[in-house]
């Protein structure tokens, strides 16, 4: 007799536990406000990454097309993956002195692990992380970028 009571009560307990579970999912289907899906890319306008977000390394230029990179290669050394290559050249200054400036700031986005070490190592705060996250391209070669804009110069007073 005890066995039968146990048998029947186990059935009811089981059914009750199942209903408890269904109550949770039932709650969510009847509360469409809880839906968490974001409609990307429709929400591109409103979708803002946090300021700290590490999207890719950029070399900041001001409106006169000047940057702050002195070509010291500290970032190149700090990078664990060799994602940065600084190619520098010597130019002649008006006063006749030779000066080292960057020719190309090559950045391999495909190798970057977004560790932020290059940014920390830069003595002149020339580079920073942008919040851009749409990096998909059709060809791998497009991921190798030259960060200094054509014709850009070193900013006055930065050394």
């Amino acid at each position: 007799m005890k066995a039968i009571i146990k048998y029947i009560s186990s059935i009811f307990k089981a059914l009750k536990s199942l209903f408890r579970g269904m109550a949770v999912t039932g709650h969510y289907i009847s509360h469409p406000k809880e839906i968490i899906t974001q409609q990307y890319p429709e929400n591109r306008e409103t979708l803002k990454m946090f300021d700290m977000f590490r999207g890719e390394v950029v070399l900041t230029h001001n409106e006169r097309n000047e940057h702050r990179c002195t070509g010291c290669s500290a970032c190149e050394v700090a990078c664990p993956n060799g994602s940065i290559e600084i190619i520098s050249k010597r130019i002649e200054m008006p006063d006749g002195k030779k000066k080292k400036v960057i020719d190309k700031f090559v950045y391999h986005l495909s190798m970057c692990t977004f560790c932020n070490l290059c940014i920390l190592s830069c003595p002149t705060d020339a580079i920073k992380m942008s919040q851009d996250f749409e990096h998909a391209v059709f060809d791998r070669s497009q991921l190798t970028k030259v960060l200094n804009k054509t014709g850009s110069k070193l900013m006055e007073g930065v050394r």
Partner: protein
Amino acid sequence: MYDFKSLTDSIHTSLSAGLSPIMVTIIEFVIIAFAFMILFTLLGLILVYAERKICAFFQLRLGPMRVGKWGMAQTAADAVKLIFKEPLVTKNADKFLFNLAPFIIILSTFLALGAMPFAKGLHALDFDIGVLYLTAVSSIGVIGILIAGWSSDNKYSLIGAMRSGAQVVSYELSVGLSLLTVVVLAGSLQFSEIIASQEAGWWIFRGHIPALIAFVIFMIAGTAETTRGPFDLPEAESELTAGFHTEYSGLKFAFFFLAEFVNMFIIAGIGATVFLGGWMPFHIGNWEGFNRVMDFIPPLFWFFGKVTFLIFLMMWFKWTFPRLRIDQLLRLEWKYLLPINLVNILVMAFIVLKGWQF
């Protein structure tokens, strides 16, 4: 209440006017076959869409949203994609059986669909042993599953097929017995008569607690027979990748996929017919006025409304519960459902003998 019999009769008489009886029969066959094919595709498309949307809403998602308004054309697009996909066959597969399996499954679904009473008079096959016929043909599908798993030359498929063999054969018993419980009440195996006997109220309300128990068992066993979650062991994707249809692609995969959904419709349809009165509107005893109002809603709506409700219930199960293990699955059937069912049928017989049903 509109009787579709007048429509079918008029088609029949107008055809008979100019043609020999054999031609008439053939033409009628073709018409019915076309109707069912269209119904099959439509059901598949709609159910797949509904499943994806409902699943998404359970899971705090939106589901398909891109193709068409609210993603309505998504399943059609998927169907087109599946049609154009290359049908791959594994190297050592038994080609004949491999190609045969999807058709057996589709065949069993069609046979079962044929006996579905959609509305008054809208009923292709009304055998006097309708209930037995349905339980018989709906289990032909398992042969297709076994063949698919056997011929794929893939161990995962084989395990899935063997699991489903054990599962479907066991749960067949419970489906049959729970239906018999109502057959005892209704006194007939013919679907049209079972429906007619629910004129005064659906059996689930009139049959006391035994009918309710039979309904719960039917829903559990029915879900298990369609191999849907939480009983989706034959295709348990976290264990067997995709179970018996792992090696199928393209249209042949689509057949398996559609058959699963149409089977769900069939189980819900049987449940609605036997327990919830089929196309019979909601009637309460002899409340004339109330019953008259209910009659204004067309029977097709009643049938599809009930089916939708049951399908929703099955989806709710699937998207809430974890999956059982194979031995637990069989234990549930042989140690719980079957004995309860047998006792239940006895109690029901006793009730009917005493004339205690409402």
